[in-house]
C-alpha cells in the first residue's frame, strides 16, 4: 500500500474513536458487553480475521504477558519491545482497565480475579460468528502453533485441534509447531482432514533435494468482488529451533527472493490486496516489510506479542502494515482494508481480547470440546499440588513455573544445574489454585519431552548460554529465532544483552563459587533436538515433584543479573 505517515496516524485515531471500551474497571453490564465487540461502521470492503499461536488451548485460560521483553538496537523502546506501563502509555490504554489486563502483566492476580479467564475455542467461535454477521464474507486466518501446547493435542496427535479448526471455519493457515508431529503427519492432515476446507500455505518450505515447493505458496480469495492473495510464511527456523529429524527432507528459511517472486506473481494474477500470513516473529516481520515490496499487511505471530495497533513499515515501493496478535487464544484480530481501484487505500485494525465472561460460548464448538476431552478429563483434572503463588512462564528470563520445572529437574535428577527451554507458551496458574496435570501438560506437551542429564564443562555451559542469548538479542532480527532465554536453575550469571555473542554472559557462579571452564558439572535439561535422544518425559518428573511437595510456595526465581539495559522500556 501507499499511505503517508499522516494518513496512517489519522486512520489509527479514527480506529481508536471506534475502539473498545477501555475504561471499565469492573465487570461490564450486559449492554456494555454487547458494545465491547460491536465493530460499528465498516472501514473497508475486505475483512480479515486473524488468530495465531493459540497453542491448542480449547478452554478459557489465564495467560500473563511478559514483564521483560527487551528490545536491542533499532528495536529499543519500540513495539513489540514495550511492557507494562510503557506499553499502556504508548498505546493510550487506561491503566487498570480490561484492556490493560489483556495487554500487560500489571497486577495480574487482582485483574485476573476481576476480569476472569480469556480465550477458549467456544468463545472464539462465537466471536468469529459475530464478526461474520457484521462483515459477511470475512476471511478467517490462522497463523499456526495451533496443534501443540496441551495434553489433548499431544495425545490425539493434534486431531482435537484439527477438528476444532475445521468447525471454526478457518480458511487459511501456516505452521511451526505443527511440524513437530513429523512431515508425514502434517501431509496426512493437509491432504485428508484439511482438503477442501483449510489451505495450508508456506512459500518458504521446499524439499531439501530439488527445492520443490511442499505447500502452496499462496491462495487467492475474493471478498466483495475484491481479489485478495494470502501468502504463507511458516516459521523459518523450524529445523533449528525444533528437531530437524521431524522434517529431515524439508528446508525452510526466510526466503526473501522467493517471497518477492510470489507477491509479484499474485499481483500479476490480479490480486488487489496481498497479505502475508506469517510465523516469522514480529522483529523478523518488521525487517522483512522494509525489504520486500507489494505486501499490504503482514499478519504475524510466533513471538506472542499482543500489539494493539499495527506498525507502518516503509520500503522501496510503498509501505506495509505489520501486526502481531498475541497467543494462547487470548485475541482475535480484525483487519479491515479499504480497497479501491485495485489498491489498498485505508484500514482499521482491532486486536479483540476474548473475555470468556463477555461472550456466550458457541454450543456446537462447546460440544466438540466436551467430546474430545471426555476420554482424558479425569486424568487432566488430577490435582497435583496447591500453588501459593502465581505460576507463569512468559518473559525473556525465568518465570515462576519455569522455576518449579528447574527445581523438579535438579531435585529428582540429582543435578547441580538445570536448563529449561525459553518457550513462550504455557498457561498461568493463580495463587490458591490447584496445579492440575493439565497445567503441567500446558507447560510441557511436546513430541520430544525427554529429560537428559549430561556432564558439561563450564566452557560448554557458557557457549550454550551465549548461543541461545544471541538467538534472542542479536540486533539483526534475521538472526533471532523468537524464543526467550533458556531458563537456568542452580547457576547464577550476569547477562548484558547489548553485547555481542561471546561477551553477553559473565560472572557464572554455582553456590557462590565461580564456575570453572575446565571443570565438569552435572546438568539436567529437557527437549533435546538431537535425533535418537531418549529419557524420562519431563511431565513425569514435574508431576512427581509436585505430588511430593503438595504445596508450592513462591519459588526463588533465578533470573540473571542484567546489565546494559537499565531504563529499557522492555523491562520493569
Amino acid at each position: 500500500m501507499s499511505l503517508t505517515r499522516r494518513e496512517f496516524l489519522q486512520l489509527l485515531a479514527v480506529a481508536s474513536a471506534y475502539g473498545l471500551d477501555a475504561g471499565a474497571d469492573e465487570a461490564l453490564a450486559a449492554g456494555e458487553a454487547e458494545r465491547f465487540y460491536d465493530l460499528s461502521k465498516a472501514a473497508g470492503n475486505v475483512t480479515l480475521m486473524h488468530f495465531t499461536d493459540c497453542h491448542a488451548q480449547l478452554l478459557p485460560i489465564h495467560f500473563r504477558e511478559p514483564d521483560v521483553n527487551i528490545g536491542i538496537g533499532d528495536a529499543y523502546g519500540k513495539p513489540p519491545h514495550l511492557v507494562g506501563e510503557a506499553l499502556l502509555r504508548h498505546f493510550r490504554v487506561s491503566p487498570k482497565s480490561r484492556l490493560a489486563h489483556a495487554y500487560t502483566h500489571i497486577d495480574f492476580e487482582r485483574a485476573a480475579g476481576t476480569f476472569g479467564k480469556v480465550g477458549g475455542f467456544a468463545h472464539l467461535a462465537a466471536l468469529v460468528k459475530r464478526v461474520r454477521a457484521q462483515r459477511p464474507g470475512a476471511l478467517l486466518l490462522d497463523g499456526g502453533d495451533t496443534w501443540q501446547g496441551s495434553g489433548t493435542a499431544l495425545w490425539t496427535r493434534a486431531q482435537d485441534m484439527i477438528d476444532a479448526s475445521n468447525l471454526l471455519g478457518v480458511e487459511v493457515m501456516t505452521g511451526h509447531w505443527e511440524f513437530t508431529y513429523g512431515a508425514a503427519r502434517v501431509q496426512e492432515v493437509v491432504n485428508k482432514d484439511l482438503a477442501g476446507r483449510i489451505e495450508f500455505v508456506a512459500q518458504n518450505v521446499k524439499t531439501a533435494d530439488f527445492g520443490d515447493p511442499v505447500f502452496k505458496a499462496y491462495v487467492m480469495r475474493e471478498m466483495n468482488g475484491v481479489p485478495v492473495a494470502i501468502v504463507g510464511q511458516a516459521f523459518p527456523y523450524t529445523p533449528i529451533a525444533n528437531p530437524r529429524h521431524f522434517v529431515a527432507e524439508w528446508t525452510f528459511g526466510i526466503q526473501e527472493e522467493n517471497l518477492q517472486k510470489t507477491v509479484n506473481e499474485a499481483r500479476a494474477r490480479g490480486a488487489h490486496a496481498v497479505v502475508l500470513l506469517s510465523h516469522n516473529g514480529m522483529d523478523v516481520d518488521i525487517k522483512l516489510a522494509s525489504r520486500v515490496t507489494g505486501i499490504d499487511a503482514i499478519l504475524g505471530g510466533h513471538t506472542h506479542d499482543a500489539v494493539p495497533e499495527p506498525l507502518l513499515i516503509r520500503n522501496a515501493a510503498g509501505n506495509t502494515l505489520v501486526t502481531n496478535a498475541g497467543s494462547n487464544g487470548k485475541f482475535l484480530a480484525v483487519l479491515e482494508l479499504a480497497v479501491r481501484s485495485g489498491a489498498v487505500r485505508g484500514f482499521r485494525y482491532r486486536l479483540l481480547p476474548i473475555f470468556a465472561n463477555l461472550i456466550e460460548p458457541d454450543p456446537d464448538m462447546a460440544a466438540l470440546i466436551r467430546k474430545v476431552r471426555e476420554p482424558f478429563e479425569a486424568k487432566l483434572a488430577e490435582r497435583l499440588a496447591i500453588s501459593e503463588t502465581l505460576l507463569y512462564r512468559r518473559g525473556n528470563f525465568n518465570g515462576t513455573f519455569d522455576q518449579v520445572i528447574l527445581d523438579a529437574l535438579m531435585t529428582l535428577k540429582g543435578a547441580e544445574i538445570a536448563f529449561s527451554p525459553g518457550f513462550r507458551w504455557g498457561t498461568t496458574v493463580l495463587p490458591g489454585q490447584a496445579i492440575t496435570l493439565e497445567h503441567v501438560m500446558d507447560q510441557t506437551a511436546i513430541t520430544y519431552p525427554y529429560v537428559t542429564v549430561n556432564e558439561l564443562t563450564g566452557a560448554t555451559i557458557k557457549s550454550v548460554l551465549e548461543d541461545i542469548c544471541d538467538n534472542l538479542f542479536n540486533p539483526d532480527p534475521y538472526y533471532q529465532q523468537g524464543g526467550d532465554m533458556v531458563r537456568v536453575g542452580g547457576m547464577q550469571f550476569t547477562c548484558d544483552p547489548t553485547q555481542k555473542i561471546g561477551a553477553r554472559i559473565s560472572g557464572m557462579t554455582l553456590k557462590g563459587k565461580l564456575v570453572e571452564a575446565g571443570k565438569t558439572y552435572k546438568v539436567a535439561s529437557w527437549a533435546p533436538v538431537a535425533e535418537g535422544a531418549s529419557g524420562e518425559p519431563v511431565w513425569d518428573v514435574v508431576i512427581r515433584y509436585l505430588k511430593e511437595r503438595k504445596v508450592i510456595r513462591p519459588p526463588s526465581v533465578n533470573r540473571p543479573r542484567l546489565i546494559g539495559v537499565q531504563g529499557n522500556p522492555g523491562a520493569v
Partner: protein
Amino acid sequence: MNKLRRNVLRLAGSAGALSAAAISGLIAGRHAWAANRNEAAFQAKAVADALKNLGAGNLVESRDIVITAPDIAENGAVVPVAVTSRIANTESIAILAEKNPFPLAASFDITPGADAYVSTRIKMGQTSDVRAIVKAGGKYFTAVKEVKVTIGGCG
C-alpha cells in the same frame, strides 16, 4: 579429522562444479577443470594464504556480487550457498568459509558469455563469514555474508 574434512570440502567443491557443468554445460569439461584445480589454494589453512594462492590481492568490495545463503544454517554439514556476479566479464567465482580449517570451499571458472551464477553446498563447523571472490577483467572483487551455525533448540 582434518584430512577427512578436507576430502569432504574437496567433494563439496567438486560436486558443485560438476553439477554446474552438467546443468548449464558452461564449463569446458571435466578434464579442463581437473587440470585447473588450484591445489595450493584449496590446501591453505589461513584465509590470507588461500587468497594469495588464488592470486587475489587488492580485493575490492562489490555490491554487484550477491551471496544467497541462509542467515542461520539448518545443517552445518550441507549449507547451500549460491553466488551471482553482475560484474562484466566475470572469469571465476570462489567461495570461502573463513573459519573452516581449509577456508577455500569451491572455485568455479566461468567461460566468456556465461551467466556468472554458481550454486553449491559447503560444510561449516561454526558460525563464519562466507566470502565470495570474483575475478573479472583481471581484477578481484569480493562480498561477504555471515552464516550462523547454532546448537539449536528453544523455539
